[in-house]
């Protein structure tokens, strides 16, 4: 290729843009999938909380509520938390002496089927256990879910902008690279090379440089993602889950180098033909 500064940097410029684009894409996909996963986990999950000072009364109401939930057809699964599980839950706030000093409520986690009527279930529980209150995880996690959804939408718009910026930069870099070869293109034309042959020669070279840059960029971003995964996975509530990205978006990432090569080659083809036709 020619001596234009952008032409020398074509591969690295493409690599940088592709790394940014792929990383952003991986991050957004992870957030998006995590939001879906959280929604699935929280939407149908509820907890019965029985706050009763008298232990025998609390246990009686707990048994009644548990029995009721197990009998309902709209309830998918039920789990009554043991004393050990309760103590573990409050341990961060109350320390090791939680069991001896404070009366803990009885908790029953349960999930309902997608079309289960939460209000009807709440009424029946209240009838069976008057001290019971119902905690709907779906409504309490709604703020987090809507935040993740908003974040996801914003990031998709960033991805879209980044994608168009990548296309523009590739097109500009290719244009600069081909313009740097102006004299050679004209020479080949004067030596009797057909337009398609000249375009083919420069498209091949451009396509190779763009492909090289794309593969390097994708490889860098995937490497960063893999390294980041170890750090992010160690967080108490990991957001960046490798297993939360499904196959189809990864296939799209694999096609990104091909998409950029097509853009680069088409740009080079058009510019070379215009250059030769001016003669």
């Amino acid at each position, binding site marked *: 290729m020619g001596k234009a500064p952008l032409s020398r940097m074509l591969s690295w410029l493409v690599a940088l843009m592709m790394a940014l684009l792929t990383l952003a894409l991986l991050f957004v996909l992870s957030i998006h999938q995590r939001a879906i996963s959280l929604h699935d986990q929280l939407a149908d999950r509820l907890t019965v909380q029985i706050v009763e000072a008298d232990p025998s009364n609390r246990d009686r109401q707990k048994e009644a509520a548990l029995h009721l939930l197990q009998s309902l057809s709209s309830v998918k699964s039920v789990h009554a938390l043991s004393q050990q599980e309760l103590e573990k839950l409050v341990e961060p706030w109350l320390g090791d002496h939680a069991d001896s000093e404070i009366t803990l409520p009885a908790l029953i986690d349960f999930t309902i089927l997608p079309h289960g009527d939460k209000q009807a279930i709440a009424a029946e529980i209240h009838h069976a256990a008057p001290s019971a209150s119902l905690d709907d995880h779906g409504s309490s996690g709604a703020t987090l879910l809507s935040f993740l959804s908003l974040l996801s939408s914003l990031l998709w718009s960033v991805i879209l902008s980044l994608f168009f910026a990548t296309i523009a930069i590739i097109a500009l870099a290719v244009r600069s690279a081909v313009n740097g070869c102006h*004299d*050679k293109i004209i*020479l*080949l*034309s*004067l*030596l*009797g*090379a*057909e*337009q398609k*042959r000249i375009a083919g020669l420069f498209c091949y070279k451009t396509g190779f440089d763009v492909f090289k840059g794309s593969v390097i960029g994708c490889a860098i971003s995937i490497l960063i993602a893999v390294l980041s995964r170890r750090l992010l996975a160690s967080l108490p509530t990991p957001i960046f889950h490798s297993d939360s990205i499904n196959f189809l978006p990864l296939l799209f990432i694999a096609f990104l180098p091909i998409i950029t090569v097509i853009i680069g080659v088409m740009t080079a083809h058009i510019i070379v033909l215009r250059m030769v*036709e001016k*003669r």
Partner: protein
Amino acid sequence: MSAIVQFDHVHFAYNAGTDILSDLNLTFEQGQFYFVTGASGAGKTSLLKMIYMALRPYRGSMRIFGEDVMTLPERYIPSLRQRIGIVFQDFRLVPELNVFDNIALPLRLDRRKENFIHSTVGRILVQIDLPDKAFHFPETLSGGEQQRIAIARALIRRPEILVADEPTGNIDDGLAASILHLLSALSKRGMTVIMATHDLHLLDRVPHAKHIRLGTKGNLESVALLDQWSPLK
């Protein structure tokens, strides 16, 4: 002899400015050697560029190999250019290619087979006396050597017309004489050689050549066989 290039009332100007070539009527015949002379700016290079179709007249008609280039579709121009060898004033060698690949370039553009390319380029390297420089790069060679490579590249396809713009401008007298001898021999074998030069001393070295002298207004001042020609004042 048949006409290979014909100019008929040709006018040419850059960007609709003053005429560089004005009302030019000229015929180049097959197998002839032509010197094109004239003062600086008389239009020698423009005339050559029109022959290899890098420039087109804005008025008049122009035929190359019998084809009217004024109406010829763009896609047919490469096939005509393949029949013309060009020696540029500034050589225009590709710096990234070695001597062998520079000379082989037209054959590679024609998609000729590699064994044909190797034998043809090897032969011409011997003819231009540079067989040991095949894998050198142009920047390591002298002006005279680069000039010979440019001539070899122009001749590698055995063109019907050789257009040379000041091909002896950068070389010593001895080398200029040998290049003129080569081009003269080629014209005797049927190649039309059209050579622009400002050096009138060269004219004496090709006695059978024709001399085309362009005037300062881009008009044709004279065309004559050299043995009928006398220097103008």
